[in-house]
Each structure stands twice: as C-alpha cells, then as structure tokens.
C-alpha cells in the first residue's frame, strides 16, 4: 500500500444520504475473483444507460469530475452490504478519500484497509462542502486536518492504529502475524 501523507484535490459532491454499497458497485459485478478493474463499474446503475452509454446528468460523467480524488457524500455513506468491492471500485476509479457526516462501520473498515481515507466531519463543514462542489481541499493525515479553501481547518477523528498503517503504507496483517505467540497461548488456554 502507498503511504498517505497529504491528499490535495477538488471534490466531487454526491449529496444523497444513505448511499449504500449496492449503489457503489451493484451485486452483479461481484462474481469477480480479483480486485482489479472495478473502477469502470463504480456507481454503474447511476452512471450508465442500459446500453452502456454514459448518463450525462450523472456527476462522474461531467467534465468537472475529471481528476477529482475526494468524494463528498451525504450522511451514512456505505451502508448495507460488506462487499469490499466498494472501496476497491472507488480506489480503482481514482478516489483517495471519502467525506461524510457519518460512514457505515464495515465500509469504513474496508476503506481503511485499502488506503481509502474515510473522513467524518460535522454538519456545518458538510453543508459547506455540499454547497461548494469542486472545492479544492487538503487532507493532512499526520495532523488529521481537513483544510477548506477558505482556510478553515477541520479536525477529523481517525483511529490511531489505522492512521499509523496508512501513514507508513503498512497493512495490518503484518501486525497480526507478529502476535502469533500470543495467539498460540490463547489457543492453548481455551
């Protein structure tokens, strides 16, 4: 995994609340046996016509969306299915961070484990971001600060261990494997 220090990008705004992982990537694409190439299926039913052509009114199909690495969404992003294909698809498309006032537990976990930064912010910051799509924001993971173009700095919560892993580009499996003596002791005990 690439270490994450600073993410600087314009935002894409999808103001809907409760965007579930079935929308992020519909179930029919889950018969894959790899993680690669799911970006083209991201938001497939909102993004494409039945014939496969793009829906011009969908945000990802608009010129302003090109190159944006930060997705701002309404409350309760990523609810529903535990499919890790959702963060895989977002990352493959080019997103590096997702921002909402509330992010569903399993999706947040899955995102952290793949280097997609889930950022939970307050209502006022969310309202500003939703009212200002395309705003250039800076995310400083070391300081856990989101900076708006107004200069406003917003502190966001991030679990200490997950931040350590993301900053250093290491995954959690190495840490778990380093605990094998403790795991063996537990297995003996029970």
């Amino acid at each position, binding site marked *: 995994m690439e270490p994450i220090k600073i993410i600087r990008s314009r935002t894409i705004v999808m103001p*809907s609340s409760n965007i579930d992982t079935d929308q992020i990537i519909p179930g029919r694409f889950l018969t894959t046996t790899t993680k690669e190439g799911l970006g083209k299926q991201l938001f497939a039913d909102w993004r494409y016509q039945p014939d496969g052509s793009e829906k011009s009114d969908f945000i990802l199909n608009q010129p302003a969306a090109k190159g944006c690495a930060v997705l701002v969404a309404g409350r*309760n992003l990523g609810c529903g299915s535990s499919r*890790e294909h959702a963060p895989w698809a977002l990352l493959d498309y080019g997103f590096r961070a997702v921002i909402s006032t509330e992010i569903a537990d399993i999706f947040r976990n899955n995102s952290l484990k793949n280097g997609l930064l889930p950022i939970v912010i307050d209502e006022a910051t969310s309202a500003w971001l939703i009212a200002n799509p395309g705003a250039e924001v800076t995310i400083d993971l070391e300081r856990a600060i989101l900076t708006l173009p107004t200069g406003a700095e917003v502190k966001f919560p991030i679990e200490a261990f997950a931040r350590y892993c993301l900053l250093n580009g290491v995954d959690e499996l190495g840490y778990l*494997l380093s605990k094998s003596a403790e795991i063996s002791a537990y*297995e003996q005990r029970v």
Partner: protein
Amino acid sequence: MQPKTMFEKVWDRHQVVPETADTPAVLFVDLHLTHEVTSPQAFSLLRERGLKLRRPDLTIATMDHATPTRTEQVFGGAPITIESAAKQIRQLEVNVREFGVELLGLQSSLRGIVHIIGPELGLTQPGKTIVCGDSHTSTHGAFGALAFGIGTTEVGHVFATQCLLQRKAKTLAVNVHGRLTPGVGAKDLILAIIGKLGVSGGTGHVIEYRGEAIRAFDMEERMTVCNMSIEAGARAGMIAPDETTFAYLKGRLHSPQGEAWDRAVADWKTLTTDEGARFDREIDIDAAALEPMITYGTNPGMVVPVSGSIPVKPNDTVFAKSLAYMGLEPGASIKGQPVNVVFIGSCTNGRISDLRLAAQLLRGHHVAKGVHMLIVPGSQQVKRQAEAEGLDRVFIDAGADWRESGCSMCLGMNGDLVPKGEYSVSTSNRNFEGRQGVGARTLLASPLTATASAIRGRVTDPRELLHA
C-alpha cells in the same frame, strides 16, 4: 465485580491482546464461515504471502450467493448461466482443496445460505465469536454469539491468524415490551425497530434485543430479528441464550454431546447480561401496538404499517428521488399497490417456519394472475423438511415456483431477478435501488404479508386473509 452486558462478556473472553489507545484489540474468532463471493481475493492474499490457513478446523465454506436455484443446474449437469458465477464457484472448490477447508459444495445435502446452515449444523453456539464476509452474519447473534460481517481483507486476516483487529463497540439495548398480536411477526418487529432507529441509528453499536416479545420468540424468529441489525447500522445484534436456545441446539451435528453438553449449557447460562449492567443507549418498543409492516422506499428504514400511507416530506430531495425510483406518491396508501413478483426466502426469512407460514396462508388459494411467486428455501435441509411436510405441493398447486436453496432473488447475483420497473414484495432484507435487478422496486415485508400480497396481486394486510 462490575456488572457486564452479554456483549462485554463475550468480548472479554476473546481478547488475545487487549486494546490500548494506540492499538485495537486482537480478537480471537471461534467460527469463520466463508462463501464463494467474498473469499477469492482473501485466498489469493494467503498465496501472495506464502501463508497457511491457520485453523481449517474453525473454518467452513459453502456456496450460496451466486449459485443457481434451478434443479437441473444444481443436480442435472445443466450449465450455470452466468459464466463468471460458474468460475467463482469453481475457484472456491480449488481454494478449499488447496487450504484444507471443509466445503459444503453445490450438491451437498447440507448446503444452504451460510447464515441458515451455521445454526442448522449446530456450529452457531452461545458465547462464540463468529465472522463471515457477509453483513448478515449478525443473524447468529440470536444464540448469544458475537457475530458480525467483515470485508475480504479481514477474511484474509482470519484465514491467516484466526484473529481480527477490533475496537470495542458501544452497546444499545432494544427493549421490546409486551407481545405481538396475531398476524404480526418477527419481521414486522425488526422493520419497526429499523424504522424507529433509522438506517444508521445503530452505527458503532452492538444491539441486545430484550424483553417479553423476544423471550417468547422461537430461534427462527430471533434469527430474523438479529439478521437485520445491520440494516439499522449495527454490525451485530444479540439475544441472551435461554431454554429455547438450548432446546434448538441439543442433538445437532456439531452441538456438544453428553457431559460436554451439560458443561456447555452451564457456561452458556452465565453469558446473560448482569443485573445492573449499563448500556450506552436504550430504546423501548411496544410490541402489542405493532401492525404488519412494509417498506415503500429505497432503504429499510423507509417503512410504514401495511395499513398506513407513504409519508409526505416536502423539500426533501433525497426522499423525492427515492419515491420517484419506486414510482410511488407521497401520501398514498401502500395497501392495494399492484404487485408483479413475490419472493419468499433469504437469510432473513428462508427457514422452515417462514415456509410454513406461507403455506398456511396459501393453502386453498392461488397466486394471482400475472404474479410470479418465487419460493426459495434457505438450505437443502429446509427444502427436504418442507417437502416432507408437503409444503412444496401447496406452493406448486398454488402456482408458485419452488427451487433449490440459495440467496437467489435477495440480490439477484445468480440471475434470479425482478424485471425493470416491476414491484416485488420480498421477505429479504434490502430494498436498495437495483438490489433485486436493475430498476426493480422492492417492498420488504413478512412471509405472511408477502403471501397475502401474492394471493391478491396487491399489497395486502395478511390479517384480512387470516380472519377470513
């Protein structure tokens, strides 16, 4: 000793390394259920790192999500229609052989939806930690297990170490007072709870369902309730084990036997939440006041009584978009809405008691003209039991479609789909846009409401038929 909740007791027992400010707990997993859809990339991880699967004895695999439900495709050698699904199924067969995991494969008499077979086989037990790469793993909490869904990376972690890194969740008590009235069931209760909590009301929490109505439920009803905890945002839902739990488990394939059984029961009895233990939050529900419930929108929190009407929310664009997708009007009554498809099945309502309810209502009736009623048992064991009781004849005589087990139309991965724009009354757990097929419009309800709606061809309060 500080009084503890059941969740805290199970959590404490499984901490290999306790959590600190800097590091999450290392939590031991007693049972890892796995299936074809969320495991391939986790097996690949083991290969890439040159790792073994640490505890094949605590791991069991089945196939359910992408499997066909047509008998000729399961047993007759007819090809599986979706090529990528067939490939995924074959990949699981390869993976379990390579890593030494027991597989209840496509033609196994014990195969079924992963959350149906865990309890059936007696693998699901009080006090266990149970995980699966599937959000409806919360189902197993009905036995007083701590059971939750994980992503594929975490599936790989459990394969390699039998452990997960976890932060301790908060606790939420849902106190269900009084008893449900006839025609109102566990599905109606959990839909009402989700309606009250909202689809993110349980985020960060483990729910414990308590109270008179919960105690009166059999295990299958309790599973229906715990199953949909995730639809309120809670990764896990739990119910204290009691005599009902023990009676269900006694004598099952993997249940403890003889003296081990007595010791297990004695231990399981200590798991219940202590008097005076504190929950981070509590809510109260009056069971007697509930009616049959049905969803009208595109998440499970958008729910009303079948006798009710769709809310009016001016200036709410998300709500308007949802109703536009559903083709429904604010303020309209939901009862009487024409229906095209009825689906009975899924890990929420695909157990034998669900099929008995459907058959009881369907007996002597016929599915309305133009309605496709699909009935998919949750497991092959459920299927055989239903056939032994003659329920399949009731379904087939009424014009319903009776299939082999699997997730089927709950998420349509196997090609069992609701056509675009059509209305489906479904006993499954998610009414998200496109869940049952592109453009499909899903109304979630109980097996009784779904069956009554199949008979009338319109959304129907089942009590009208029960009393008739």
